[in-house]
């Protein structure tokens, strides 16, 4: 079972964060490759594991870097507003230890500069997430 464990020096303050990359979905990569179109480079950033997020979120400007177009639209409720329309994109999330998950994420603004992604329950639903506050570490098994 692929997994990774991270030690965060102050887990309570920082939260369960992990450096990830996102890339265009597998199938789109094949289509681009077949058409001899350059495949956009994966984009790096810091992700927060967020059990309060129904689905994974990518900061809007990073979606643009991948050159992705929307494949859907959903409405979301946040702390600030309700029924906000957001576009959906098919992306691949590349975690440490070669764990790769393809998912349908939404593009939305994320406040502050330190977090570029929220990893939501669309990804967590196929995993075991262990938050070990006493050891300042967390583990995700897929």
């Amino acid at each position, binding site marked *: 079972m692929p997994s990774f464990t991270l030690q965060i020096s102050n887990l309570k303050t920082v939260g369960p964060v992990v450096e990830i990359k996102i890339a265009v979905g597998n*199938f789109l990569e094949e289509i681009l490759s077949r058409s001899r179109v350059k495949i956009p480079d994966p984009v790096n950033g810091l992700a927060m594991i967020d059990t*309060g997020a129904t689905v994974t979120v990518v900061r809007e400007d990073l979606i643009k870097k991948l050159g*992705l177009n929307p494949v*859907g639209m959903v409405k*979301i*409720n946040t702390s600030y507003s309700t029924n906000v329309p957001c576009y959906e994109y098919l992306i691949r999330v590349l975690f440490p230890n070669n764990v790769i998950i393809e998912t349908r994420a939404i593009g939305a603004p994320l406040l502050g500069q330190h977090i570029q992604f*929220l990893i939501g329950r669309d990804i967590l639903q196929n995993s075991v997430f262990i938050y070990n506050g006493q050891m300042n570490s967390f583990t995700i098994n897929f």
Partner: protein
Amino acid sequence: MDEILGKELETYEARKSELLGKAKGKFALIKDDQVVGIFDTDLDAIHQGYDRFGNVPFLVKQIVELEVPMEFTSNLLGK
């Protein structure tokens, strides 16, 4: 917000009753004013969309009576 996929969302709303009658819970692939196909999974519909149209906007929508908004409790999300 609705300029991209605006036409597709209009098409979905216009055909929603018919789609609910024949394919409730499945996924519709819609481009402009055409319902291109109905699929068992969203990934099947998205793959078909990329295959037929390439990297352009298209709508994959689950056919449901009532859409429940997705919830985000984190105050990092700025909308």
